[in-house]
């Protein structure tokens, strides 16, 4: 728990030297096997910052945090796991980084991810894949896989990720950690390298629900630099709900579409909650088989437009090719982007081109509306909606990466919340053959405090929190 750690640092029980030394020693021991980070900051620099910050009275004074490498950090390389930005150093901080620094957090490094957050396994990274600390043969999920792995390996207690279609929740589920995809507009995207604006949010990742809330309460809030943030101040503490007042709607269509290994663990967890008085009922969302194609059509369309900015001339990979503008841009982008990124840009350009815009893009947006309407109406009836976070157990490295449609299928359960803009949380609820399984809870728009409040109750009953893989 961050509160305990903060207490120990403040009282002197854990001197900064020991805290930082232990963390770096662990990094040295396991990072070459896990590869959670793209950039690790210099130890002396970090130690000096911790020493200075520990004396301040912030909510995270002196606490080390890992940041996904698509969140801009002034003076610290931010690569998006792409060759395109291999040596890019942002001249400014993302709003969330400013907020964290104000509370005394110290960045230890930037975590590995799928290139430009395009992937569900952290294998599309230009810097090589991250491995799952619970089983090094397997992926930690993605795209915020480095953040999940850094938590599960016990390197840090808190981390930031970003979630466009499940990129926080997938690694949370696969690494037995907690992740929240916040309500759209509650966390500033200023300084988040854009992939699909209308879908994505930066969000917290932690090892228990209390720390998840602490981190969310710091990063959330209105920002004049992001016109899509709303006037929102997170409540001082997560909702304190009585178990008997919680009515969970279990999405049977998602349960059925998920592998038995995963749904059986989720069912056992829900049964246990039910024995504590939580009301559990089966319900159906509908349209689930259309959600995934609709999501990918929208995400690729937005991506092709967002990634148009990478020309290699103003910043990013430059081939030094001596040709005209078009040739130079085309070669810089050919050498700078990986295959999955190219695939999504080409498809996005296709979908938005004359003749296909109506056929794909507009139809996808209509399906988005149907899904949002269906979710909103179910959430009037139920406190939250539950399903497995991921439809399958963590795949082995290389198992899904060669087949894009197979990889996209992993996002079936998670894209719903992004399409609708509602909050969704993943928490560990058990293991199947020693592999972590996550439960996803979706709530009404702006019910983030309620989701975390329920998770705080549920983690105590189920007993899966503060878990670290032995490496």
């Amino acid at each position: 728990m961050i509160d305990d750690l903060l207490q120990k640092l403040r009282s002197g029980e854990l001197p900064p030297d020991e805290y930082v030394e232990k963390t770096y020693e662990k990094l040295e021991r396991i990072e070459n096997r896990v590869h959670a980070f793209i950039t690790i900051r210099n130890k002396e620099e970090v130690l000096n910052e911790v020493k200075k910050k520990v004396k301040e009275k912030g909510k995270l004074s002196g606490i080390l945090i890992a940041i996904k490498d698509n969140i801009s950090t002034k003076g610290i390389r931010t690569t998006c796991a792409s060759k395109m930005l291999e040596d890019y150093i942002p001249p400014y901080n993302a709003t969330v980084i400013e907020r964290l620094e104000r509370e005394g957090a110290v960045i230890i490094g930037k975590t590995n991810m799928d290139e430009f957050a395009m992937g569900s396994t952290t294998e599309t990274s230009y810097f090589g894949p991250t491995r799952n600390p619970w089983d090094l043969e397997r992926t930690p999920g993605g795209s915020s896989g480095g953040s999940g792995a850094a938590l599960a390996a016990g390197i840090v207690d808190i981390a930031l990720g970003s979630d466009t279609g499940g990129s926080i929740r997938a690694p949370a589920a696969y690494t037995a950690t907690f992740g929240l995809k916040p309500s759209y507009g509650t966390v500033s995207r200023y300084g988040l390298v854009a992939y699909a604006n209308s879908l994505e949010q930066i969000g917290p990742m932690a090892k228990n629900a209390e720390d998840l809330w602490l981190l969310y309460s710091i990063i959330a809030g209105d920002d004049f630099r992001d016109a899509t943030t709303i006037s929102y101040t997170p409540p001082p503490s997560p909702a304190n709900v009585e178990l008997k007042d919680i009515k969970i709607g279990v999405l049977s269509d998602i349960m059925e579409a998920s592998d038995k290994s995963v749904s059986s663990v989720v069912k056992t967890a829900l049964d246990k909650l039910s024995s504590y008085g939580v009301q559990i009922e089966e319900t159906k969302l509908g349209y689930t088989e259309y959600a995934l194609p609709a999501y990918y059509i929208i995400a690729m369309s937005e991506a092709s437009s967002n990634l148009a900015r990478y020309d290699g001339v103003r910043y990013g990979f430059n081939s030094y090719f001596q040709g005209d503008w078009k040739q130079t841009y085309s070669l810089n982008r050919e050498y700078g982007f990986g295959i999955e990124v190219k695939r999504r840009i080409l498809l996005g350009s296709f979908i938005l081109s004359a003749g296909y815009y109506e056929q794909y893009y507009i139809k996808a947006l209509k399906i988005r509306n149907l899904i949002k309407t269906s979710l909103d109406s179910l959430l009037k009836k139920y406190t939250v909606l539950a399903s497995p976070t991921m439809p399958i157990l963590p795949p082995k490295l290389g198992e899904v990466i060669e087949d894009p449609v197979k990889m996209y299928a992993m996002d079936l359960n998670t894209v719903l919340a992004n399409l609708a803009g509602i909050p969704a949380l993943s928490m560990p609820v058990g293991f199947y053959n020693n592999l972590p399984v996550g439960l996803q809870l979706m709530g009404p728009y702006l019910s983030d405090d309620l989701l975390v409040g329920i998770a705080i109750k549920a983690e105590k009953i189920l007993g899966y929190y503060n878990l670290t893989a032995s490496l």
Partner: protein
Amino acid sequence: MKIEVNKELIKKLETLSLIQLTEEERERMVNDIKKILDFFDKIDELNLENVEPLFHPIRPEKLRKDKPLPSLSIEEALQNVKRKQENFIIGPKTYGE
């Protein structure tokens, strides 16, 4: 309207996207894009005639004042430029030798 995915289409998309693929990538893209478009075509099963498209989950209504704010210095703004001269970025040529 079923589109035929072939190398010609991929070349057209390369021009639209400003990405010049290698021949090998182009071949791979034909297969991948065929497969992905088949996966997308699922959406044709639904009758969506009376449904409004939802572009964005919320309606951003916030505009900030049209007032200049402090911004990056020239040095900061140009710190990631590979080819520059004084305070200018050197770009590709605009016309022949």
